[in-house]
């Protein structure tokens, strides 16, 4: 259930599902997302521009010339959310090259975590990750389940440009920069795999909420071969 509804500026509704981040809370968020998206598709709610589900929040942005915060808040409070229709989740394998030219933050991580690069990689590759949400840039998956021993804060000043394909970690999460973009995650490697394909108009994002991701390490030679 939504714990609190507030306004995010004058053109968005901020639905807070509580402070916990786990798969159960996230499923609840996704449930609301699916339900409201369906109503928007059927034009049963007007004025909504975008819905952004995340770990434990749902942000609903709207056109202030068509509706307003108090009216949408009431609509959301009165929704009758039924049990979710489970999507068939996938298990996706993603290759990563961790040579120093791709893993940009091993020095920082080694210092902060007091671990060698090899130890960090061992902890990183042994886990299976759960996709909580997709976003920031097109198709970027936010993957939960990073081993406690390699959890680290974001960079103090985000990078202006993180290379496309970069694989990053911060706190208990990992992600993939599907395009070059600014960003503040600790970069440990790079994948040659295309995670967002715009040519696939109906379903451009490879990894979606609920999916599982397994990373595996590749050499630079394999990286170059796969990148062709």
């Amino acid at each position, binding site marked *: 259930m939504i714990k609190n509804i507030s306004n995010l*500026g*004058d053109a968005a509704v901020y639905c807070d599902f509580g402070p916990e981040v786990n798969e159960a809370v996230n499923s609840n968020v996704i449930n609301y997302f699916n339900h409201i998206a369906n109503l928007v598709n059927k034009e049963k709610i007007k004025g909504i521009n975008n819905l952004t589900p995340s770990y434990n929040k749902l942000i609903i*942005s709207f056109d202030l010339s068509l509706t*307003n915060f108090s009216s949408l808040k009431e609509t959301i409070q009165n929704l009758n959310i039924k049990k979710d229709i489970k999507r068939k989740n996938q298990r996706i394998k993603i290759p990563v090259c961790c040579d120093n030219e791709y893993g940009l933050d091993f020095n920082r991580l080694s210092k902060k975590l007091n671990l060698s690069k090899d130890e960090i990689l061992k902890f990183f590759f042994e886990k299976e990750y759960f996709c909580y949400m997709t*976003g920031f*840039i097109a198709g970027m998956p936010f993957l939960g389940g990073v081993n406690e021993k390699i959890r680290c804060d974001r960079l103090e000043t985000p990078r202006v440009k993180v290379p496309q394909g970069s694989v990053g970690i911060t706190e208990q999460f990992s992600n993939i920069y599907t395009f070059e*973009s600014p960003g503040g995650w600790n970069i440990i490697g790079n994948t040659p795999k295309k995670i967002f394909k715009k040519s696939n108009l109906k379903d451009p994002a490879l990894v979606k909420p609920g999916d599982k991701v397994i990373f595996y390490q590749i050499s630079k030679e394999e990286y170059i071969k796969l990148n062709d």
Partner: protein
Amino acid sequence: MTNTFFEILRPGVNTTMQDTGRNHLYHIGVTISGAIDQRNYKLANFLTNNSLNEAVIEFAYQGPLLRLNSGKINFAITGDVFFNIIRNNSVIEEGKCYQSYILNDGEQIDILSTKKSIYGYLSISGGFELEEMWKSCSINTKAKIGPNNGKKYSINEKIFIKKSTLENFKYRKIGYKNSFDNIVRVIRGTNFDYFSNEAKHIFFKEKFSVTRLVDRMGMRLDGPNLENIVNTNIKSEGLIRGAIQVPADGKPIILLSDHGTIGGYPKIAIVISADLDKVAQLSPGTKIQFEEVSLEEAEKLFKKYTEDTNKYLNEHS
């Protein structure tokens, strides 16, 4: 398809196609995009007698130099812009914003630069020949989405125009003046209380200057450090245009039209909808003064913003 097109003789700094933007894709990380200054975008379409949702050329700082190939068109430029029209008899005519012009085969539009602001708009009567992607013709260069393979325009490219003749040409001119006031009105952000009392005070009392790190994604500001007393990271969550994030270095970032859809830095405030066009046009070096308003005030100010826009859309001369 006509054979009327602009040939790009000089592309300019960041020349893209933009419209009202792309919705219903935040959940897969595709941002809204669209003209960064929506009012000037709409006015450009009005001046060329288009639907207000037609795609137009957006340029930043130095604009493009374009030559019309075949046909005859009607165009208008909006913003705070220096431009010339190079006529076929080699006469250089100084262009004025907010009025429509006729351009003949072989003539050129030379958009020299914006003046105090960053962005300007060029609209063509009838619009450009473009393919929509997810119901929008906006170019998102970060995700390479939209016309021109999602890239900004470069030299020698062609931009095709839908109509090759003047149909129902109506000369239009409006008396619009851009506002350059540096007061940006905001609503408290969802993480306002992450900041120390002193930081909250400083945020509304001191000025913040626009740095050179400005693009369609966002605007980094410089100024007094904003001390965070709770946590400099939050669990990543959905973002919107106008959100003001403060990373651990204490320097605010205002998110603009190509912003990331999700972010993990605390939000101290959100720019109100009525001030989004204005803030995006503030150029590096400008000092910003933030002013707090309530949600109710913000809604009233948006109504006034819309009425002011509509006033120009009803103004004929």
